[in-house]
């Protein structure tokens, strides 16, 4: 039972920040980007959950329509999720931080997509969880997170306002830092220590839940700070 809860948690937990997000209209572009990421992540994780839960039925369904059996495993969804997450958060960082605004968002996005193409053309199969892709995601987003924190440290102006961007970045840093080594060695782990790899996947789910709670807190805090501004006006 607890395995089912942990497996579904990565889909269900997204509902928490998404509910907070839809209780108010946010005008900030970077919050809208996170909101859209959550919608896509919810769809992907729900689909992954269904494929895992109803694997046999799904296999029969695919066989019925002559669709390749690779799709009966949810691994490719995690690859898609990784690409989506990296892309959304690259755009997020370019719309929030002054230091990233000077660089055209298309350049890092193109570089990332090019790297993804190389990974899947020459190294990994798209239908198996790609360690290289997930580690690349961790590396790219950790570099962005550290740059964001360093830029914050350099900032002359210190605002007392609630910083939703900082909270989201902190959540993302926690998620990526813990999962970086899991992702990096995942394909080796699945061969040499399968039980441990499965255990690590649960660790991933817990950290993803923590990340979602950080996002929910960022939305909630932003909402409260806007409300208190209106009251004081």
């Amino acid at each position: 039972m607890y395995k089912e809860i942990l497996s579904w948690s990565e889909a269900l937990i997204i509902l928490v920040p998404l509910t907070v997000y839809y209780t108010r209209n946010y005008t900030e572009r970077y919050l809208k980007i996170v909101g859209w990421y959550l919608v896509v992540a919810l769809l992907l994780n729900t689909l992954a959950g269904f494929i895992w839960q109803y694997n046999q039925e799904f296999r029969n369904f695919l066989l019925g329509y002559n669709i390749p059996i690779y799709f009966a495993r949810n691994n490719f969804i995690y690859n898609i999720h990784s690409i989506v997450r990296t892309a959304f958060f690259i755009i997020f960082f370019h719309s929030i931080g002054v230091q990233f605004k000077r660089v055209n968002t298309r350049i890092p996005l193109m570089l990332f997509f090019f790297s993804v193409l190389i990974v899947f053309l020459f190294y990994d199969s798209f239908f198996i969880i790609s360690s290289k892709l997930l580690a690349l995601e961790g590396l790219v987003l950790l570099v962005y997170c550290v740059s964001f924190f360093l830029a914050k440290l350099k900032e002359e102006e210190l605002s007392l306002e609630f910083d939703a961007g900082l909270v989201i970045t902190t959540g993302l840093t926690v998620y990526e830092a813990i999962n970086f080594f899991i992702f990096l060695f995942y394909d080796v782990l699945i061969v040499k220590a399968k039980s441990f790899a499965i255990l690590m996947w649960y660790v991933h789910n817990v950290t993803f839940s923590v990340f979602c709670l950080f996002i929910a807190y960022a939305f909630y805090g932003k909402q409260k700070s806007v409300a208190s501004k209106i009251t004081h006006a």
Partner: protein
Amino acid sequence: MEDQNPDIIYLVVVGIGAMLILLIGFLLSFNLSQRRKFRYRQEMMQLREQQQNQLIEAAIRGEEAERKRVAEELHDDVGAVLSATKLFMFNINTEPLDDAGRVSHEKCIDLLTESISKVRTISHNLHGGMLHDLGLNEAIRSFIKKISQGSTLATNVELEESYDSLGNDADIHVYRVIQELCNNILKHSKPTYINLSSWLESTRVHFQLQYNGRGLSQQQFEALRYSANGLGLKNIHNRILLTGGEIRFTADPEVNTTEIRVPVKNVE
């Protein structure tokens, strides 16, 4: 657990542990640095505010000293010269003068008496001696009485008596603020009445000035005190700032209100 390879597990666990330590260290040092930056900014702001208050205080003290000097010179020099002139005028033998000469002599004495009285009034207003001798409430009453004398302006003063003084400098600041406010009201509002009342609320004294005619709103006050013509309003703001109090303006077609709240130190 037979399929487990301890080396790779060890590597991943150490990797995650190292990343966690790095992450916690990084977030802690970030938090510490931001707190330090925040404290430094706060200290700088406090220092700037303190310096600004010191400058305002010095300017106001200078202004008060100058008022006192002018008042003393008016009273002791000009007043004494006018009184002596009046005395000499009385000693003039008017018998050899014709009627026109006697009328001129009497007119001179009347004008001299009026001048002496005006010099005394100006001197007292500038000096604020009554404030030191009789206290804030009496000085305010005396001032309001003076502005209504010889005019159709109706005045009413009801002041709280449960305190002696608002503090060392607060008395003079409040007195000058009320003087400036009343002068502004007379100049700009063309009122038919002015009511001044005060009451004590916890550790603060509220002074409420109500009048009819053209009023001044808080927004107008904020805008005017930054303009070149708003020197008096700027002065009011600075003096209120030094007392640690606050001032609120409300303009209303029926009755305009200006309320001053000042902390009081010697409550009976």
